[in-house]
C-alpha cells in the first residue's frame, strides 16, 4: 500500500539545512494500524505530511497504491489526496461558518460528486457517527468529541485507503479520546490503513505497529503488547 524508500526531507532554515526526515524506509499494508511516536521535532508530523502528499521528499521514492507519487505536480497530488487519503487533525479543523453536514460534505464538493450522491453519503455518515440530530449545528455548538466525530466523518466520506491522524485526541479528555480512538480503529477492520501520530504512549500503544522516531529517523518498531 505505502512504500517509502530512502525518503529524506531537508528544510532550509536560514543558511542552515535541517533534515526533518533521513533515509526513511517504511512499508505499510492495507488494514495496518500504525502509530508514530517520538518527541516533538523528531519528524513524525513531517512523515505524516509526506505520506499525505502535502509535502514532497527531497530525495527517495514514495509508492502509494502501487503508483509512484514522488514527483506528482500540485494538481495530481490534490487528486490523489482527494481519492485515497483522509486527514484527522488535533485541532479538528472544521470550517466554523459551515454546519456539521456541510463540513462533512466539503471533500465531496471539492471532488465534484453529484448532489444526490453527496446527500446520501453525508446522511449515512451522520447516522453512523451519531450526529444526525447535530447535522445543522455549527462547530461552536458542538462538543469536542462531536467535533472530532464530524472530522472523522469528513475524512472517511471519500472512502480513503489511508487515514492519517495527527494527535487526534490531543484536544480531548481521556474518555472522549478513547471513544474517538475506537471509532478510528473500527475503520482498520474495513481495510483502511490507519496511521496515528502521537506523543501519548497510551494512545500509541493501541496500534498494532508502533514506530519510534528520533531526529528524523525511525529508531525502532515494536508490535502491540511488546515493550519498545
Amino acid at each position, binding site marked *: 500500500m505505502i512504500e517509502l524508500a530512502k525518503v529524506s526531507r531537508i528544510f532550509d532554515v536560514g543558511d542552515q539545512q535541517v533534515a526533518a526526515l533521513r533515509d526513511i524506509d517504511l512499508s505499510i499494508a492495507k488494514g495496518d494500524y500504525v502509530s508514530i511516536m517520538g518527541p516533538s521535532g523528531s519528524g513524525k508530523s513531517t512523515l505524516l505530511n509526506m505520506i499525505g502528499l502535502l509535502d514532497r521528499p527531497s530525495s527517495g521514492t514514495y509508492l502509494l497504491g502501487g503508483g509512484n507519487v514522488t514527483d506528482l505536480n500540485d494538481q495530481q497530488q*490534490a487528486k490523489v489526496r482527494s481519492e485515497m487519503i483522509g486527514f484527522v487533525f488535533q485541532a479538528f479543523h472544521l470550517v466554523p461558518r459551515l454546519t456539521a453536514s456541510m463540513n462533512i460534505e466539503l471533500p465531496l464538493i471539492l471532488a465534484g460528486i453529484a448532489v444526490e450522491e453527496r446527500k446520501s453519503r453525508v446522511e449515512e455518515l451522520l447516522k453512523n457517527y451519531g450526529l444526525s440530530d447535530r447535522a445543522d449545528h455549527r462547530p461552536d455548538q458542538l462538543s469536542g468529541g462531536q467535533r472530532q466525530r464530524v472530522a472523522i466523518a469528513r475524512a472517511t466520506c471519500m472512502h480513503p485507503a489511508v487515514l492519517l491522524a495527527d494527535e487526534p485526541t490531543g484536544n480531548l479528555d481521556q474518555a472522549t479520546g478513547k471513544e474517538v480512538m475506537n471509532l478510528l480503529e473500527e475503520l482498520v477492520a474495513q481495510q483502511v490503513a490507519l496511521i496515528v501520530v502521537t506523543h501519548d504512549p497510551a494512545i500509541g500503544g493501541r496500534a498494532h505497529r508502533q514506530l519510534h522516531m528520533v531526529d528524523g529517523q525511525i529508531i525502532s518498531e515494536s508490535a502491540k503488547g511488546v515493550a519498545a
Partner: protein
Amino acid sequence: MPDLIKLTTSSFLSYRMRSFLTALGIAIGIMAVILLTSIGEGLRQFVLAEFSEFGTNIITIQPGKTQTQGSNIGILGSVRPLTLDDADVLRHLPYVENVNPGLMGNADIRANGKTRRSTVFGEGHAFSEAFTMKVQSGSFWPDEDNEQARALVVLGAKVQQELFSGQNPLGSYLRIGGQRYRVIGVMEPKGQILGMDMDDAVFIPAARAMELFNRPGLMEINVSYRASADEKVVIRMITDRLKEKHGSEDFTIISQEQALEVLSSVLDVITFAVGALGGISLLVGAVGILTIMTMAVTERTSEIGLLRALGAQQRQILTLFLGEAMLLSSLGGFAGLAMGVGIAQVLHLFAPSLPVHTPWLFALLAELSAISIGLVAGVTPAMRAARLDPVEALHAE
C-alpha cells in the same frame, strides 16, 4: 458551481458588516456614475426639447459682433442697431420663409379696470409661422408698412384669462404703457420656454414696441428657412447681404445648430467629469476589496490548508477567492445601480421638469465594470491563497 457559490456566500454572510462596508465602496461609485449620468442624460434631453420648442431651421441675428460665445452687449444698444429695414431686406433672400424682427420689454397692461405687468413682445406679422406658436382665436396683424404699424395686440393665454376672465376679448381695447391697443388675437397656451412664461405676455408689432420702449433698434432678427436648404448657405447669404448694407460685419449670427453643438459639448464635458469622479470612487472600492480579500486570505490561511488537505486543487482555491471578490463587487454594483436609479426617480418626483433617464447600456456597463473591478482586485489575494504551502497553511493560527 452552485456549491462554490454556497461556500462563497457562507464566508460572505459570516462577515456581514465587513462585507457590507466593502461592497458599499463599490456601491457608492456605481451610484454616483448612474445617478449623475441619469440626470445628465435627462438634462440633455430636457434642453434639446426646450431648444426645439421654437421650431427648427431658425437663424438668429443679433446686433454687435461677438468674438466669443455668450450674450453680447449689442442687446443693450451701444452698437449700431439692427433695424426693421434690415429685416425687410432679408425677406427677399432665397430659401428664406419668414423673417421676424423681435424685441421685448415689460409694461403695464390695463383692461376692464385691471392692471397686469406682463412681458411685451414686439414681433413681425409672421411670428406664429416663424416659431411654432399657434393662434387660438383671431389672427396676427397683416403684413403692412412698418411706418404705419397699427396699435394691434395678440394676447397670451394667461393675460387673456386674467384681464378678460375668459370672455372673448377680440375687438376690445386695452392699454399697454398708456397706449390704446385693439385685441385681434389670442394665443394657444404654450407654457414656459427656457424659464420664460410665454402665456403671461402680449404680442404687438415690432415698430410699436420700439416706440413703446424707446429703443433705436431690434434685439434680434429671426430668419426661418426651408428645411431643404443648407444652413451654411443661408448663413452666408444673410451675412453677405447685411454686410453689404451695413458696410461691415457689425452683427452676430447664431444658428440653432451651433448652439446645440456648444450645449452638447458642454454636457459631454459634464458627463465625462462625472464619470471620472465615479471612476475614482470605484478605484477606492477596488482598493477596499483588495484589502478585505488580503485580510480574508490571512485570516483563513488554516482553512485554505484544510481545503488543500481535503483534496482541493490550487485552481479551486483561486476560484473560491476570486468568486468571493466578484460576489462582493457585483452585489455592491447592484446596490449602487438600485440606489442611483432610485435617487434619480425621487429627484424626478420633486423636480418633475427635470427628466431623468438611465440608459440601459450604461447600467449594464456599470455592473460589468463593478464585476471586473472585483476580478482585478481579487486576483492578487486569490493567487496568494492558491500558492500557500498546504503544510504551513494548516498549522497557521
